[in-house]
């Protein structure tokens, strides 16, 4: 392509050689044409991403009669905002929102603190068996969630000295129906440790050497030198963890029996019965359930995008 032709002293522009006025309009025109093509492509991509979201919002204010029409309407003919209040009345969503928020925040904090420490140690501290530990972590990424449910449930149920259990984990309910069961088993994931490790690996070793010469302890090197440099990683892992926790449904349903400990996704399931789905209420509830995630992304998007770029996550 003409734009990429190398311009060196040995290779002067063609216009200069032939003694004609160079076509000065050529490069800016091509550049703006490429820019337009790029923007159109990006706009189409964005539209593809946004349309389901807009459809969700429009569906959330439509009546069942309008939803039944064919061909389906995109813009609501009438805006039934009451769908929101009626959906919120269908289950104790205030409690569910609170619980989801506590669990997602708890998981995020545990992940950021312990995950970053684990990632740092795997990336920057040499110790015997480090590779095996790392390979084991990578192997854990391959285990399907469903296969872990029963063993995790048994661990929670037979947790010694909790919920009336004796030292051998017998006689009581362990962590079942408690915040422990909701917060601890999903608190830290192999994915987050892996991501943190990759970020810590990308930082220069010289920083560590300089810090050691200055007499900093290992923990201070971790906390004061390296960790402040991986804010994109913290935002990325934090958002991913929060999102995963916020959307968790099966585990909270299995380990709790009380409505006081149930989460937002359990509430949304009320609208999906075996042979009938109340789409307008489901979409209203889902719209509300996505608000915290959207807000979080808005506030952390700068670091989040940096983090994705650095980690090469798609």
């Amino acid at each position, binding site marked *: 392509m003409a734009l990429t032709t190398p311009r060196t002293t040995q290779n002067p522009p063609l216009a200069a050689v032939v003694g004609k006025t160079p076509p000065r309009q050529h490069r800016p025109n091509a550049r703006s044409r490429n820019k337009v093509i790029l923007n159109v492509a990006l706009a189409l991509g964005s539209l593809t991403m946004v349309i389901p979201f807009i459809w969700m919002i429009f569906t959330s204010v439509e009546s069942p*009669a309008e*939803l*039944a029409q*064919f061909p389906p309407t995109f813009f609501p003919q009438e805006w039934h905002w009451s769908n929101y209040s009626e959906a919120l009345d*269908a289950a104790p969503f205030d409690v569910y929102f609170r619980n989801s928020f506590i669990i997602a925040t708890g998981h995020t904090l545990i992940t950021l603190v312990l995950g970053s420490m684990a990632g740092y140690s795997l990336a920057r501290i040499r110790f015997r068996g480090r590779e095996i530990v790392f390979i084991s972590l990578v192997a854990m990424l391959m285990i399907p969630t469903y296969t872990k449910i029963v063993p995790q*449930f048994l661990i929670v*149920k037979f947790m010694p000295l909790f919920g009336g259990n004796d030292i051998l984990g017998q006689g009581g309910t362990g962590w079942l129906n408690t915040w422990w069961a909701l917060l601890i088993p999903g608190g830290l994931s192999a994915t987050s440790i892996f991501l943190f490790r990759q970020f810590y690996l990308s930082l220069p070793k010289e920083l560590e050497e300089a810090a050691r010469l200055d007499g900093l302890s290992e923990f201070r090197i971790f906390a004061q030198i390296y960790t402040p440099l991986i804010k994109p990683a913290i935002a990325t892992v934090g958002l991913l963890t929060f999102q995963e926790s916020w959307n968790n449904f099966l585990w909270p349903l299995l380990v709790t*029996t009380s409505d006081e400990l149930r989460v937002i996704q359990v509430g949304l*399931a009320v609208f999906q019965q075996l*042979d009938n789905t109340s789409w307008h209420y489901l979409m209203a509830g889902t719209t509300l359930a996505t608000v915290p995630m959207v807000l979080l992304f808005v506030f952390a998007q700068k670091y989040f995008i940096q983090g994705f770029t650095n980690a090469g996550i798609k």
Partner: protein
Amino acid sequence: MMIRNSPTRVRVGAISAVAALALGLSACGSESDSSAATTSDPDEVTGDITLLTPIFEGTEGQKLLEDELLPQFYEEYPNVSVSVDYTTYGNLNEKLTTAAVSGAVPDVMLMGVGWIEGFADRGLIADLSELGLTEEKLLESYTPAIVDAGTWNDGVYAVPIMLDTRFGVARMDLLEEAGYDSPPQNWDELVEMSKALTVRDSDGTLERAGFDMLSLDSRQAFETMLFSAGGDLFNEDDTAPTFNEDPGVDALQLMSDLINVHEVEEIGFSSPDAAVNPLLNGRAAMGIAHNNLWTQGLEAAPEVLDDLEPFVIQGEGEGMFFGGTLATRSATSQSPEAAQAFLEFLASPGPALAANEQRGNVPALSELLDSEYVQSNGFVQFAMENLDVAKREGGPAEWLEVRGDFAPAVEATLLDQMSAEDSLNDLAGLVQTAIDR
């Protein structure tokens, strides 16, 4: 739940009155009952029991259970307390599995038709006849097929609360436009009418399906057609599959022909997750539907309810399918009498009627046919009037293990990838292996 707004509240009030009356009646009736739970002095029945339920979910369901039904139960059994664990049908199996492996089995569990055999076979649920709920007694109130859904190896392991049914539904306004004055009476008429009622535009794009089979789970669609062909899923003693015999092959072949030869519907035209059933907006003239289509119609298109006519899909047999929710008692319950008393309470006329109305389902108790709710819901009434010909899924203890294999086999034939015979024979092989294991 606010879904149905104020009319439901009025109905709930009415249900409460009916429930109170029914409780009185059942209490009177129970004097002659042999049930241990009902012959015991209710004051002597004690215990803290747990209930695991996939119904009564949401605010409306919880209100019904906790504010109306449980107080009635406590009035009769003051020394029993019930804590409720609400779940969904979609995750009931996981709840039950984890409860079973950890030994923390709820005292009373509500589960589906076809589930009982597996849990009874593993010894997780108790034989209710040990405390007096015998098969003979149940047959006084339920049709034999419904009682059969709760029995296993001559024991009674579950008592039905509500049923879900599938049958044919026709849009009579569309049929009349095409010159038909009644739904099809046999398969030949079904094919002929479906073809005549199918509408395509000038480009050949399907605008209206003559007969919709894709808006419900393909396993249940096949089962309905299998029963219509006079077939059964398993042999008498549930030791071998029979769905791959001639009636099953004929049924699946008919489904495939309707799509691939007669082109009365196309794959992708509708699905169980569709926002609306095509019968409601006129995109289908006939189809197999769940009884709650009536409730959906009340919300979305009340003007078409008069045009919806249910029919049993008539072939060599009668095509009507039923599933449902049954109450069971844990075999390891520390308070078996309390658990059984509560189970019997939930299945008694008042609570069962209220639970059915809350979900728009079909009461299993024959005596509820005359109730106001049943008489006001055309599909529920039709279902109850025809329960004697309805058949259920399930049979062997391995049913839960193999039922997921049905949909891919049926869909392979509907997609014209395999012949009906080959699909069903392959499936039968898998099922037989599971049974023999």
